[in-house]
């Protein structure tokens, strides 16, 4: 237990109410306020992306054109992909919870470069505005912008690729900021093996953000030059190679899925020990697994291209090395479940979401094995099996992780408690809706239905109808959960204590919501943040 003085309560002066003018929010360099601003902005785009998804599901409910034309459908799935990835889930946990919690968890007053942190928020806002313009003049190339089609189509590709380029900078600067913060701003005693596992996950994510995003930035720039000046690098008529665009695109786009899911691993790694009152099982292995996933994540990108006409040698290499990423993920899951052994488990909403995460990620991980195995991927590539797999990893993983984090740290961020019953009902809706949406899509994939299809053969009809019903339940569940939190923050009168779940982690030792400078005076740390339970002889970590 860090034995610095108990958090002297500053009356009710905290980061939220010590200045309340709009300008104080827009020009703040306080990492907590920037985190909150990110939270509200990305939630707007989560809703926009969700509406696009529901419209598509409505169209797909029955075979044959219903109320959309093929072009409108193509625009919708492009916007759903691009908005959800570039504007919601990539900033997702790192920009909101990461910004808010990283300095608190390592005992610092703020991130390394506070003004750079605000600059990256405003770069994100500029990128978001460009993306909103892309809503008006549609783009129909899919979020992957594959080369020959994206250089030939008449739709406004330059606008959305420009938006993604700008958003990439915001991601790079956030990653850079976090790396320097973790290296230089840890409070006395906070050595690397006393860092919370969420900070390890954020550090691994920041490394990927900083080093992978420039590659897609340049690739999108080349695509814009291709459309504008016709430099011909990806244009087959001029000797270019469209598969080379796929290589550069996936060099970033595979590590980006680890940017999305690693913070969620960190969140689950924080929640399970607190609600099991047990130390995180194999803390060191979980931390090193985060770094291993980040590093191996750079080696495996072309398993998205196993049937794209690449050489057999590279197909075999990428298929084998992809299993190398699956192992650390499996280790993490084993460690989380072992943490619950002999614990004293309470079923608050964050714990429910964390347990749901483990179940959903088991399905996500195991379906990934099908797509990594060469012979089976030849059948499953670009079918609905892939759509279901990546929704299980991104939505079942990162989004459930984000919502779990919002519920777990809600008292710390707002100083209030949300309504537990409504939160649990929303959880059930989300869980049932999500599975009802995407399990039928696994079946569609097995039956061989390709993805991005506006119209399909009648035999796929029943599964699509099920999936549409599930999508509605899922959408309703999310709105229910988010509204519950919003109303609790605005109207709830119940004051939350500084540490309602009796967590040992540093961010819970200061008052909630924390003061502007996070800690009255810089804490010193003597033990790692999972020292729950009474010591047993063989328990040395």
């Amino acid at each position, binding site marked *: 237990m860090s034995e610095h003085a108990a958090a002297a309560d500053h009356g009710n002066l905290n980061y939220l109410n010590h200045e309340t003018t709009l300008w104080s929010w827009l020009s703040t360099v306080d990492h907590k306020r920037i985190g909150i601003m990110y939270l509200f902005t990305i939630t707007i785009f989560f809703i926009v992306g969700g509406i696009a998804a529901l419209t598509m599901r409505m169209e797909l409910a029955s075979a044959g054109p219903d109320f959309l034309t093929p072009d409108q459908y193509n625009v919708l799935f492009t916007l759903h992909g691009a908005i959800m990835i570039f504007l919601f889930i990539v900033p997702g946990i790192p920009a909101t919870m990461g910004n808010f919690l990283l300095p608190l968890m390592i005992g610092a007053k703020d991130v390394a470069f506070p003004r750079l942190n605000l600059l990256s928020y405003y770069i994100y806002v500029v990128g978001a505005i460009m993306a909103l313009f892309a809503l008006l003049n549609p783009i129909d190339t899919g979020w992957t912008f594959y080369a020959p089609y994206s250089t030939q189509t008449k739709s406004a590709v330059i606008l959305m690729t420009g938006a993604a380029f700008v958003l990439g900078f915001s991601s790079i600067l956030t990653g850079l900021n976090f*790396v320097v913060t973790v*290296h*230089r*701003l*840890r*409070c*006395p005693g*906070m*050595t*690397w*093996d006393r860092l919370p596992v969420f900070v390890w996950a954020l550090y691994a994510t920041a*490394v990927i953000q900083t*080093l992978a995003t420039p*590659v897609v930035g340049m690739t999108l720039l080349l695509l814009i030059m291709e459309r504008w000046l016709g430099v011909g690098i990806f244009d087959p008529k001029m000797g270019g*190679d469209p*598969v*080379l665009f796929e*290589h550069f695109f996936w*060099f970033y786009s595979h590590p980006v899925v680890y940017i999305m899911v690693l913070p969620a691993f960190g969140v689950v790694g924080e929640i399970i020990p607190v609600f099991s009152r047990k130390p995180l099982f194999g803390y060191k292995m979980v931390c090193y697994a985060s*770094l291993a996933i980040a590093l191996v994540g*750079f*080696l495996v990108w*072309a398993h998205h291209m196993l049937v794209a*006409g*690449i*050489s*057999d*040698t*590279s197909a075999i*290499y990428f298929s084998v090395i992809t299993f190398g990423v699956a192992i650390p993920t499996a280790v993490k899951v084993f460690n989380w479940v072992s943490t619950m052994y002999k614990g004293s488990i309470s079923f608050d909403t964050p714990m429910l979401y964390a347990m749901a995460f483990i179940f959903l990620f088991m399905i996500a991980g195991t379906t990934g094995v099908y797509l990594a195995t060469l012979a089976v991927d030849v059948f499953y590539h670009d079918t609905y099996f892939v759509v279901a797999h990546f929704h299980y990893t991104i939505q079942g993983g990162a989004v459930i992780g984000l919502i779990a984090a919002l519920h777990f740290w809600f008292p710390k961020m707002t100083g209030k408690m949300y309504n537990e019953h409504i939160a649990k009902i929303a959880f059930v809706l989300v869980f049932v809706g999500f599975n009802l949406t995407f399990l039928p899509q696994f079946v569609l994939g097995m039956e061989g239905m390709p993805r991005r299809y506006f119209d399909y053969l009648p035999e796929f009809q029943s599964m699509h109808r099920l999936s549409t019903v599930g999508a509605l339940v899922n959408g309703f569940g999310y709105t229910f959960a988010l509204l519950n939190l919003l109303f609790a923050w605005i109207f709830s009168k119940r004051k939350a204590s500084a540490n309602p779940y009796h967590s040992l982690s540093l961010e819970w030792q200061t008052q909630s919501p924390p003061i502007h400078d996070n800690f009255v005076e810089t804490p010193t740390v003597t033990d790692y943040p999972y020292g729950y339970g009474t010591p047993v002889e063989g328990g040395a970590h």
Partner: protein
Amino acid sequence: MSSHADTHGDGHDELGHILPFSTYRNVLIGLLVLTVLTVVVAKVDTFDFGTLNIVIAMIIASIKASIVALYFMHLKYEDKITWLYVFFPLLLLALMMGLIFIDNPLRRDDRPVEIHDPLAQQLEALQ
């Protein structure tokens, strides 16, 4: 990856390392000499090594680059983390190039089947 010694403030509390003027001068001379060398190797025909040319040019360029990095940019006196974040991108560059080179050149050389169509001429005329 994580060095336990890398606790807060890691030791040396004064600022950057100060180098004598002579180091800078020697590095400048070295760079100019190497530039001349690389031009000579490329342009004078006696040194034509065929495909080896590009390898030599890259080696010389890498020597120049490392001198600039080590002395002009004081990389020699930086801590381990900075070294790591210099070599990791170079590793990624090598990785990207290497894995694309085991794809593009080794692709299966499929050829379409030769068409022997008795009606070819007439159909061509109609087309």
